[in-house]
C-alpha cells in the first residue's frame, strides 16, 4: 500500500495559497445539498461544524457529553500560539514553523506545519471577533506570554482558562448555527462505527446514551474530531470520557493509524496521591515562566524530606539542584515538555524525588514572589494556585508546589493527507485525533492552535475539493452497509452484556494503564515492550471472557459506555507497543533506552526512521501492517535538538 500525502508542489511558503486556488469548489447554491457529519465538539469539531454550516453545508454534530461545551478542549489552560509578532521580538510564520518542527523532533510534515503557522494569525483574529476575552495590556492591545520550546512571546491567553474561552467561542459559533437550523446537534450520543460504501465514508452508527437506541446517520463526508487517546494509560490529564473509540472503529474500517506510540508526558502535573486516583490534574506549563524546578542536591536530603524530618523551605540554596537551569542554561525551566519530563524522571530515579512516593519534584515560586510580589503572581496564576491548594491541601504561596509528569496528549492519531483526509475517501480527522502537526512532541499552546486551524481554516477549503468530485443528493441509511454495521454494533453490545464475568471494567482499565505506563511510558525498551505486548494480549483475552458489564442496552448505562471504550483501548495499547517496538530510535516523547546520547538525550535515527509509521488493520488477531509515509525535509536541516 502506498500513501499519497497530497502535499502541493512549490515553495513551502506558497503551498497553501496555491493549494487553495487549485482545490475544486462547491457552488454556494449546491452546498446545501451536501451533508457533513462532525463527530466531537471540541475546538476542532465545533469550529469545523460552525464554519461548514456557515458555508451552507448541512451539518450533524455529535458528542458524548451532555453539551458541546463540555469537550475536553475546555481544560486547556495556558494559551494558544500565533505568529503575530505583536511583541516585536522577532517572531514570524517561519519561526513558529521552525520551532514546531524542531519541537516535534523532526517527525512532522513540513507542509502541514507551515500551513499551521500560517493560519495561526487568523485564529486570533477570529477568536477576538467572537468575543473571546483574551488578556490585554493597559493600552487595550493583546498581551502575550512565553511558553516552552520558544524564545519569543507568542502565546495568547485568557488567564489560566484559554481552552475554555476558545472552546466557548467555537461553541457560540456552533450554537448560532444550531439556531439557524444549519447544524443539528446530537449530545449524549456516541459514535459506534463508521459506515463505508464502495470504499467511501458514507455515515456513522451511533448509540443514544440515554435510550440506548442504535441509529444510522448518513452523509457525504464524515469528520472525526474526537481528540486523543491518553486514557489508554488509565491515569492521564484527559477527561474521564475521552476515548479512542471513534478513531479506533475508523481504523478497523480501513483508516490507518499513524505514530500511535507518540504520546506526550506533561511535566507539570499534580503527583499521584494514592490507589484511588481516577485522573491526574495538569498545572499549566505557563507556571514554568516564573516557577523554578528543583530537587535536593543529595539523596540524603531528599530522604529526610520524604520522611517529613525537614520541609522544603528548610533546604538552603546551595543544597538545591535547579536541574533544568543547570543542564539547559539557555532555555532553563522552559525546555520543551519531553525534555522537562524526562529530566524529572531521571532525578526521581536517582532517589531525589520529594514526596512520599519519591515521584515528585518541586516547582518553586519563592523567588518570583520575592521579585514581583504576591499580587502579581496571584494575578497571573491565582486560579492555578487555588486549584493546587484545593487538590493537595497545601498553599503554594508558602510551600513549593510538587509536580510530576503525566500523560497529557497524543501526537499520534489517524493518518491524514494534506487535506486532513484519512486514506478512506470522505473520512477526515481533525485536531488531536489526527497525527499531522506535532511530530514526536508537541510544544505548549500548540494544541489549541492546531484544533482551531483545522476546523476554522483548513477543512472549509479542503472538504470542498472532495465534495465537488462527488455527486450531491440524498444518501439514504437504507443501504445494506448501514444495516450490517448496525447489526455488528448490536451484536457487540450483546456480547459485552452477555459475558457476565467476575471483574469490573475499571479493573481491566487500571491493569492496562499500568502496563502502558511501565513499559510504553516515559522510557521504553525492546525487552519491556515485548513483555508488554504479551501482557496486553493476555489482558484482552481475559477482558472478553471475564468482564462484568451491568444493566441493559436500553437505558442510560455508564458501565456499558465504559466497557466499549476500554475494549478499544486494549487493542490500541497493543498497536502502540508495536509502533514503539518498530521505532528503533528515540525522538521527542518516544524515548527508547537503547537509543540515547551520552548525555541522556533522545538519539534520532534520521536515516532509517524519518517516516510516519502508519498502521493498517488486517483483521482480528492479525498483526497490523506497517505502511511508511516518508518525511521529506526540504527547508529545515535535521539536527540534534539542543536547548542548552
Amino acid at each position: 500500500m502506498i500513501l499519497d500525502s497530497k502535499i502541493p508542489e512549490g515553495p513551502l511558503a506558497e503551498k497553501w495559497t496555491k493549494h487553495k486556488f487549485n482545490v475544486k469548489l462547491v457552488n454556494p447554491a449546491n452546498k446545501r445539498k451536501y451533508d457533513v457529519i462532525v463527530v466531537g465538539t471540541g475546538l476542532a469539531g465545533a469550529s469545523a461544524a460552525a464554519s461548514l454550516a456557515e458555508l451552507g453545508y448541512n451539518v450533524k454534530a455529535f458528542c458524548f457529553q451532555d453539551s458541546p461545551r463540555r469537550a475536553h478542549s475546555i481544560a486547556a489552560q495556558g494559551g494558544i500560539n500565533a505568529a503575530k509578532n505583536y511583541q516585536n521580538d522577532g517572531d514570524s510564520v517561519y519561526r513558529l514553523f521552525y520551532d514546531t518542527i524542531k519541537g516535534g523532533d523532526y517527525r512532522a510534515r513540513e507542509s502541514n506545519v507551515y500551513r499551521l503557522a500560517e493560519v495561526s494569525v487568523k485564529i486570533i483574529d477570529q477568536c477576538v471577533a467572537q468575543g473571546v476575552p483574551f488578556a490585554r495590556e493597559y493600552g487595550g492591545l493583546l498581551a502575550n506570554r512565553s511558553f516552552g520550546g520558544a524564545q519569543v512571546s507568542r502565546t495568547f491567553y485568557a488567564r489560566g482558562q484559554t481552552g475554555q474561552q476558545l472552546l466557548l467561542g467555537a461553541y457560540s459559533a456552533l450554537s448560532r448555527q444550531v439556531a439557524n437550523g444549519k447544524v443539528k446537534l446530537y449530545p449524549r450520543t456516541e459514535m459506534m462505527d463508521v459506515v463505508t460504501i464502495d470504499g467511501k465514508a458514507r455515515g456513522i452508527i451511533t448509540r443514544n446514551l440515554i435510550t440506548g437506541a442504535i441509529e444510522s446517520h448518513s452523509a457525504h463526508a464524515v469528520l472525526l474530531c474526537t481528540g486523543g487517546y491518553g486514557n489508554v494509560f488509565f491515569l492521564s490529564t484527559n477527561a474521564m470520557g475521552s476515548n479512542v473509540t471513534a478513531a479506533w472503529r475508523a481504523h478497523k474500517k480501513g483508516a490507518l493509524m499513524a505514530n500511535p506510540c507518540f504520546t506526550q508526558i506533561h511535566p507539570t502535573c499534580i503527583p499521584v496521591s494514592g490507589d484511588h486516583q481516577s485522573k491526574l490534574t495538569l498545572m499549566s506549563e505557563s507556571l514554568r515562566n516564573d516557577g523554578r524546578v528543583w530537587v535536593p542536591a543529595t539523596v540524603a536530603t531528599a530522604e529526610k524530606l520524604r520522611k517529613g524530618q525537614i520541609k522544603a523551605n528548610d533546604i538552603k540554596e546551595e543544597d538545591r539542584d535547579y536541574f533544568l537551569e543547570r543542564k539547559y542554561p539557555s532555555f532553563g525551566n522552559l525546555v520543551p515538555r519531553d525534555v522537562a519530563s524526562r529530566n524529572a524522571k531521571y532525578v526521581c530515579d536517582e532517589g531525589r524525588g520529594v514526596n512520599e512516593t519519591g515521584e515528585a519534584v518541586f516547582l518553586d515560586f519563592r523567588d518570583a514572589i520575592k521579585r514581583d510580589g504576591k499580587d502579581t503572581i496571584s494575578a497571573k496564576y491565582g486560579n492555578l494556585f487555588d486549584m493546587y491548594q484545593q487538590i493537595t491541601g497545601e498553599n503554594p504561596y508558602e510551600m513549593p508546589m510538587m509536580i510530576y509528569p503525566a500523560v497529557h496528549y497524543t501526537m499520534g492519531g489517524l493518518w491524514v493527507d494534506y487535506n486532513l483526509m484519512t486514506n478512506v475517501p470522505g473520512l477526515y480527522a481533525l485536531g488531536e485525533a489526527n497525527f499531522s502537526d506535532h511530530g514526536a512532541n508537541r510544544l505548549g499552546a500548540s494544541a489549541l492552535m492546531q484544533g482551531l486551524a483545522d476546523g476554522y481554516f483548513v477543512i472549509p477549503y479542503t472538504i470542498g475539493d472532495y465534495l465537488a468530485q462527488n455527486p450531491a443528493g440524498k444518501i439514504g441509511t437504507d443501504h445494506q452497509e448501514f444495516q450490517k454495521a448496525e447489526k455488528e454494533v448490536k451484536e457487540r453490545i450483546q456480547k459485552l452484556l452477555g459475558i457476565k464475568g467476575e471483574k469490573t471494567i475499571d479493573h481491566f482499565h487500571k491493569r492496562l494503564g499500568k502496563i502502558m505506563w511501565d513499559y510504553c511510558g516515559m522510557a521504553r525498551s525492546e525487552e519491556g515492550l515485548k513483555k508488554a505486548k504479551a501482557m496486553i494480549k493476555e489482558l484482552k483475552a481475559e477482558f472478553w471472557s471475564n468482564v462484568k458489564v451491568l444493566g441493559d442496552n436500553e437505558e442510560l448505562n455508564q458501565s456499558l459506555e465504559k466497557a466499549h471504550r476500554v475494549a478499544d483501548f486494549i487493542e490500541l495499547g497493543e498497536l502502540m507497543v508495536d509502533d514503539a517496538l518498530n521505532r528503533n530510535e528515540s525522538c521527542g516523547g518516544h524515548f527508547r533506552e537503547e537509543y540515547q546520547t551520552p548525555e541522556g538525550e533522545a538519539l534520532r535515527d534520521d536515516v532509517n526512521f524519518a517516516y510516519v509509521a502508519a498502521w493498517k488493520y488486517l483483521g482480528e488477531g492479525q498483526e497490523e501492517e506497517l505502511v511508511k509515509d516518508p518525511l521529506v525535509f526540504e527547508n529545515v536541516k535535521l539536527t540534534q535538538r539542543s536547548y542548552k
Partner: protein
Amino acid sequence: MNLTLKIWRQKNNSDKGGFKDYKLGGVSKDMSFLEMLDVLNEELSAKGEDPVHFDHDCREGICGMCSLYINGKPHGPQQTTTCQLHMRSFNDGETITIEPWRAKAFPVLKDLVTDRSAFDRIIQAGGYVSVNTGGVPDANEIPIPKTIAEMAMDAAQCIGCGACVAACKNASAMLFTSAKVSQLALLPQGQVERKTRAEKMVAQMDAEGFGACTNTGACEAECPKGISITNIARMNREYFSAVVSSQNV
C-alpha cells in the same frame, strides 16, 4: 473514614425515584468526592448492583459536567465543583445526602444525572457574536481597556454547571444567562447585537421554565467560579433598555 451515603436513585425520567442508603468504608481524606463515588460504584459493580450514575468528565473543575447537591448545597460544602471537592471536607462517620439538581428545566434522566440542555438553548437564542469564519479585522484593531476585558473575563468564566439554578430557591437561571449577556455587552464585539441578544436570551430563559430572580444572592455564593450578581443587574439594565428602544416590536 467510614461514611453513610444517602443517595437519590431513579431508574429513568418516568420513574418516581427515592433515597437509598449505602455504607462505605476505607475512604481516604485525599480522595476527591467523585473518587469516593467511584469506590462505591466499584463495590456495587462487584456485587452486581447497578452503579450510581452521575455526570462528570474533566475532573479539573472546568467542564461543568459534574453536579450533585451534597448535604443541602450544590457541589457540597466548599465553593468549588464537586470534582474538586475532597473528602477532607467531611468527617468520619458522617452521613452524606446526595441529590440531583432540582429544577423543572433540568429533568432527571437517571439517578443523579440531569438534562441541562436548556442552557444550550439559552446560548443558541443569542449568546454569540454573529461573525462568520474569516473576513474579520486584525485582532489588535479592536482595542479593549484592560479593566473591561477583565470584567468580561470574570463573566465569561461561567462553566455552565447549573449550580446557580440548583442553589436558587426559585431555580432561576439568571446568573447563567446574565454571565453571557454581560460578557458580550461589555465587549465592543458584542455591541451590534446587544439589544436583540438581551431580549432573546431572556425570552428563552423564561420559555425553559426557570424561575424569576429574587436577589437572594444564593447563586453567587454557590457559584464555583465566583460569578457575581452584578452581572444580573447588568442583564436587567440591558434588557430594560433593549425592550424600550429596540426595533423588535
